[in-house]
């Protein structure tokens, strides 16, 4: 796949970004990217936009021209050829141009699809792992290495790939942080991965993207990115000041409710893996091992 990288998608995109984004405020989260994953996706979005515009704009222009030129009016001097219905030359272009564009788009898409299944930058040291569980109607984040947990927000260090492992202890949902990169579904009994990374500190809006019941609209969270040292500081502080999440506390969280942000200094060990297993993961041992390792 290496040769594909020389294709000029990102260059085209880079030239166009200033035009497309002039006038766009920072509220356009998909363009206001904060990490390498979101950047790749944004560039692909802009490339596809440009390539499809090559067809769309001429089609619309041609339509208005033809209607003007060939209107059924008595004085219209434009040629009228009611039997003309075949032209191999024209049909060659009619099929050829879309085929060409789709070829280019297809190649770029395949390239990026393979690019995003692993961390997009080389890792210095271990990635940070965060286990995410979508609940009715809140998000639980567990840090298996740091042994802390949060609800409806999570903190990550900047410039370090983060491995989100996703599941659900409720109907399925979808975990989406637009400024850091795309979304991935959370499904009961399964563990899915999403690699994201933040390049600069900030508060990044995240939400559940797949409908999951009555109060689904309230499933929003923030991903807070801060420099590594501040992040370590936050861990330390959380461990010393926050309350612990007990098993009863977890069972309480699983109940249907809308809650505010919460922070816990610990969580019952293995509760994430246990949930996946008991929700049906026991039938998918291989996938489970691969996803949670």
């Amino acid at each position: 796949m290496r040769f594909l990288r020389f294709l000029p998608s990102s260059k085209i995109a880079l030239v166009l970004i200033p035009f497309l984004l002039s006038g766009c405020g920072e509220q356009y989260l998909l363009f206001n990217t904060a990490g390498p994953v979101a950047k790749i996706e944004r560039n692909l979005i802009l490339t596809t936009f440009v390539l499809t515009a090559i067809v769309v704009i001429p089609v619309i222009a041609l339509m208005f021209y033809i209607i003007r030129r060939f209107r059924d009016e008595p004085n219209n001097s434009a040629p009228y050829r009611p039997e003309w219905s075949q032209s191999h030359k024209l049909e060659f272009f009619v099929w050829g141009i879309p085929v060409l564009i789709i070829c280019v788009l297809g190649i770029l898409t395949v390239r990026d699809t393979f690019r995003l299944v692993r961390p997009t930058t080389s890792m210095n040291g271990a990635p940070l792992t965060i286990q995410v569980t979508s609940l009715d109607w809140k998000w639980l984040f567990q840090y298996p290495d740091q042994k802390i947990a949060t609800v409806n927000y999570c903190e990550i260090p900047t410039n370090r790939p983060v491995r989100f492992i996703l599941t659900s202890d409720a109907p399925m949902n979808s975990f989406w942080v637009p400024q850091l990169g795309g979304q991935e579904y959370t499904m009961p009994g399964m563990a899915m991965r999403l690699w994201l990374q933040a390049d600069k500190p900030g508060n990044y809006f995240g939400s559940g993207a797949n409908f999951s019941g009555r109060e689904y609209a309230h499933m929003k969270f923030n991903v807070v990115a801060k420099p590594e040292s501040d992040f370590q500081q936050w861990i330390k502080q959380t461990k010393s000041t926050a309350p612990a999440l007990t098993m009863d506390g977890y069972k309480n969280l699983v109940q249907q409710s809308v809650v505010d942000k919460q922070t816990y200094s610990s969580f019952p060990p293995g509760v994430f893996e246990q949930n996946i297993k008991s929700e049906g993961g026991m039938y998918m041992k291989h996938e489970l091992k691969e996803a949670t390792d």
Partner: protein
Amino acid sequence: MIYGADVSIVLVTIAILFVLTYYKKWGWLWREWLTTVDHKKIGIMYLIAAILMLFRGGVDALLMRTQLIQPNMHFLKAQHYNEIFTTHGTLMILFMAMPFIFAVFNVAVPLQIGARDVAFPYLNAISFWLFFFAAMLLNLSFVIGGSPDAGWMSYPPLSDLPFDMGPGENYYILALQITGIGSIATGINFFVTILKMRAPGMTLMRLPLFCWSVLGACILIIVAFPALTAALALLLIDRIAGGHFFTMLAGGNPMMYINLFWVWGHPEVYIVVLPAFGVFSEVVATFSRKRIFGYTSMVASIMVITVISYLVWAHHFFTMGAGPGVNSFFAVASMIIAIPTGVKVFTWLFTMYAGRVRVPAPMLWTLGFIPNFAIGGATGVMLAAAPADYQYHNSYFLIAHFHQVLIGGTVYGMIAGMYYWWPKMFGHRLNERLAKHAFWWFNIGFYVCFMPQYFLGYMGMTRRIFTYSPGMGWATWNLISSIGAYMMGIGFILIAADIIYSAFYGERDTTGDIWDGRTLEWSLPSPAPHYNFAVIPQVNDRDAWWESKQQRLEGKEVTALQYKSPLRPIHMPKSSGRPFVLSVCFFVAGFGLVFNWYILGILGFLGVGLCLILRSFEFDTDYYIPIDEVQHTEKAYGRLLHGEQ
């Protein structure tokens, strides 16, 4: 609001009953409409039902847009909002788009191919009544027991026990299941009709493009709908018999439902859009006074779409953990669909090229469709790029895209078809002035409504949220979008007003060929006699009726169409009340199962069985129209017969 709906339903029902009784129309209604097997009348009933459902689905849409006008709005409650978007999606796809295309199938296909009816008229009536009572069953949910609220796709586990106890999901499953039976039957019916009942001389490569598109849609229906039937049946077993097909707890898997659903669901969007392409092809050729450009390319593109649309379903869940290989395959396959679609747009443009373009209502909707579909198609390609879809999925970008292609394609196409064939159905045309106003309200409203939603998608707004907080920058675009929705509502009201106005004052069509048409249906009087063709025409060309008119202009004897051979008695199917009764039984069975009232359910199914058995012992199902009567009818239409001047 629900009580308001209850009251209005009761009042309307009483009013209808009163009017029917007062004017002594019960017998007429039963004889002429409820028992008919005439494809033209069935088409008209489909059309009326589709427009009513469009109204209901449109009201749903306006309620939702009202709720989203500003942040933290308190117009609808969460539960209510969820029910409304679920029924909006379900109604629009299955109870508006499907009957609307079936209406046009029924009205146009037999007339275009020179046939006297569809291949299985009795089955055709069953299809219609199954759809009708399924629609009633779904609509009933709003007033009895609660509407479905798990989204129109109703993914488990959300739609499964125990997350959704209420009867709403049962209504959804059973209504879809019942209408699905009718849809499969319609698919088979028109597939056979087109392949077996074409007039002599009409080879497949002389088939009007609309019929080609119907053929493509029918192939899709026949192969795709069983997947939906299976998915819904399994979900029903999960729900009412404690099965575990889609709950992972006992070894089932929700992915199985999602795959089955979209194995149907993606072809479904081509099922509803292909006939629209067909309508556009007819309309463009007629109103450009020109042969369609690149007929072979058109046929090829219809068939390519028919096949490839089966290979793209997983693009509905790129983000559900499939590997990059799978995602790449489905991404590229989805993009390939854009090629034949692009070809079609170009061929429509070249058809107008060097023609003489008139722009009455059907053409107006066709021209309105082209920029719409160009933009919608382009955003479709953008969505097909799998990594980009990681950002678009479930966002308002997606919502804007599929409304743009489904409304811009199917609804524009069906409305164009409605205006185009209205004279053929009712013998008068719709008012042009009202039609133009309706179009511009609808079309401009359409852009005002959906263009902002692309921006909302880029801002990270997800679908199906009933409320949002200020500070996201979403408020302005949502307000504009809602204004657009109201404008579309005004457009719809103008269309409805046009229909009522024109019934009284519309220009009558005495020629039967009001548009200077090209295909066989325009060789008949408007509305067509119930046997369609007194003599089955002999077809020698692609645009048979146009060619025969050209021959007449050149002073040649018209060889193709009119009364060359002597009249013979015409073989016709008899009307039957049983399709109606059968469908009522299905309705009763469905209603029983919704509430787990098994006795009622079993009674309903016994009724269904009884109807089937009675039918199989019925031999007196057809009759002959004598020559005298045919002559009499033809004379009344002002058509003098061969050798009888």
